[in-house]
């Protein structure tokens, strides 16, 4: 029978299907951060259970960590306790932790690929919805709740329902200055934030294959914003090249064995998907969200819609509510929207190529008056690389702040946040009400668009630069 990549990974990880219970799926890799794990460790302790495979776990601290003055103790006592609890839990259970002072520290979905911890064909979980990122390697990677974190620690498995399969094919070549971020925002604009519910999405087509590994990570990262359980891209030479030589990648004869296995993973020709969505890359302009849901998105050359543009009553109401929260008038040109703050970073766009393009756009320009621009590398490794390439200096010379790594203003847990009424151009993944600070207004964009907005003080069509 012809199988999709998802079906191949599912079949090879099925432990058993006991009568009256959900199928039990084996978990190869378990990623952790400080926010969604403490209650799971406590649950294990209370039940007197042990972690089955400590070697399957890689942990970091990212959500609550300050991005400046890292040498000082964390000011917020509750955040400090969460960080200390993570360190204590990892020590007690002998887990591999990249703590706040570790040169490998960074955002979980940035550091895991950097160390080659996730490989094609693996089932990977994390108490974090953006675990979908690792689908870029052809791994089935998805977010779970804290009870499931505890479940995986105790059993190395999870009861799971099989998902439906969706193929999102992006044909043709992406225009210059459009990026993986613009593809995924366009996909979400098309299918909606619930469009992928119950599905695992496989991204394919020329424009997807053409992406770098970093771009594929950006693409899969936001599969969850389309409601999907996971996103996948088939592994190919780029994937193998990226993994080779990294710390947790196989080596020697094991590399050959692994490679032979990985090459069996891509979906069979003519494998059937439950749903197929096709986009044409040539049509994908740089995207800007105008509302409070990632599906409320428009091309930079477009305008903010009017409620009457929506036939669906729910979407019409959502538009009214979003325009009110965002303080935007219908028909405002996207390029007329001003910004006060620019955030470059996050597990979506905190990788080296994101800083390269931002520096390229920023070079010989200054941050506009009244705009604060913050660059937060996804990891110390990204930071170090950017500094070696002189990208930090280009940004600093233009007036950007150059910070230490962390989730930072993507979810604003660490004190980096918008004040009420502030408007951001953000390379992160969610524009929900209050996401970046109560009353803050978020516009999601690519790194190139963010950098251009920092210089202009409003959105600009970077294709015209």
């Amino acid at each position: 029978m012809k199988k999709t990549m998802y079906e191949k990974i599912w079949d090879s990880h099925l432990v058993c299907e006991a009568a009256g219970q959900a199928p039990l799926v084996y978990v190869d890799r378990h990623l952790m951060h400080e926010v969604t794990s403490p209650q799971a460790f406590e649950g294990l302790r209370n039940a007197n259970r042990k972690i089955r495979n400590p070697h399957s776990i890689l942990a970091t601290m990212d959500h609550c960590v300050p991005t400046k003055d890292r040498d000082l103790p964390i000011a917020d006592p509750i955040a400090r306790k969460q960080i200390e609890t993570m360190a204590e839990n990892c020590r007690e259970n002998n887990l591999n932790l990249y703590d706040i002072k570790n040169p490998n520290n960074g955002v979980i979905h940035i550091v895991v690929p950097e160390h080659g911890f996730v490989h094609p064909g693996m089932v990977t979980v994390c108490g974090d919805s953006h675990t979908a990122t690792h689908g870029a390697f052809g791994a089935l990677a998805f977010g779970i709740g804290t009870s499931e974190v505890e479940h995986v620690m105790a059993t190395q498995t999870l009861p799971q329902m099989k998902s439906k399969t969706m193929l999102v094919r992006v044909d043709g070549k992406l225009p210059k200055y459009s990026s993986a971020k613009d593809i995924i925002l366009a996909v979400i604009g098309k299918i909606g934030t619930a469009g992928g519910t119950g599905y695992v999405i496989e991204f394919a087509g020329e424009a997807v294959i053409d992406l770098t590994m970093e771009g594929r990570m950006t693409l899969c990262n936001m599969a969850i914003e389309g409601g999907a359980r996971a996103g996948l891209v088939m592994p190919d030479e780029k994937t193998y090249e990226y993994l080779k030589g990294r710390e947790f990648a196989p080596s020697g004869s094991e590399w050959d064995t692994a490679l032979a296995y990985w090459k069996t993973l891509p979906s069979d020709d003519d494998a059937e998907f439950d749903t197929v969505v096709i986009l044409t890359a040539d049509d994908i302009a740089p995207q800007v969200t105008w509302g409070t849901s990632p599906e409320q998105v428009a091309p930079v050359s477009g305008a903010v819609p009017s409620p009457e543009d929506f036939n669906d009553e729910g979407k019409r109401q959502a538009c009214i509510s979003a325009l009110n929260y965002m303080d935007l008038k219908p028909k405002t040109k996207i390029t007329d929207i001003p910004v006060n703050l620019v955030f470059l970073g996050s597990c979506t766009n905190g990788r080296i190529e994101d800083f390269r393009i931002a520096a390229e756009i920023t070079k010989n320009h200054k941050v506009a008056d009244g705009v604060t621009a913050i660059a937060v590398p996804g990891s110390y490794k990204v930071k170090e690389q950017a500094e070696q390439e002189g990208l930090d200096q280009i940004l600093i010379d233009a007036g950007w702040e150059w910070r230490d790594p962390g989730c930072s203003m993507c979810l604003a847990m660490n004190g980096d946040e918008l004040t009420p009424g502030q408007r951001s151009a953000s390379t992160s993944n969610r524009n929900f009400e209050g996401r970046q600070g109560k009353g803050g207004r978020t516009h999601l964009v690519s790194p190139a668009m963010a950098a251009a907005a920092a210089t202009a003080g409003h959105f600009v069509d970077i294709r015209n630069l």
Partner: protein
Amino acid sequence: MEPYNNHTSIAALINRSNVDTDQIIPKQFLKKVERSGFGIHLFHDWRFNDDGSDNPDFELNKPAFQSAKILVTGDNFGCGSSREHAPWAIADYGFNTIISSSYADIFYNNCFKNGILPIRATQEQLQLIANEINSHEGCSLTINLEEQTVVTPLGNNFAFELDPFRKENLLHGLDDIGLTLEQIDKIDEYEQKHRRLYPWLWT
């Protein structure tokens, strides 16, 4: 986990779509290392004014909805992050049942781990329930998990779908991990094969 019992309870209506986990429990409350005490922060940014007083315009602050155990709400409820703090806050506030036309995947799974029954209704059923609540705020719905039915005050009765094992676990308040550990031989067996097939994952 407490077993889920059939009940007749007040149903509160939040007639909005795409209610995300950042609204259910804003991020500033995710720093705690405990599972309990999140109910007071449920829907914080909608529920309270800047000075900490109740926002009278927010649905759950209506007197008629106090002590509601059933939350009726719009499409794609619980979208966004995987934070289990969202169902913890919902359960801690006092809800044990949600009725919506659709849920985000991770949120839906998380509900069952916390004794919350997320009922999937059709758009028509949801509209009908919302209409009844709107015309009589504070009215009660009857939930029967064994029969998988919801009965409204006007006698409208509809059945809902639910995976049999999820139903069983909720009804008996079963510990998922305990159930999985009953399959420990199967897991051991799988792992032996796994070591043989994928040795690079074990070095």
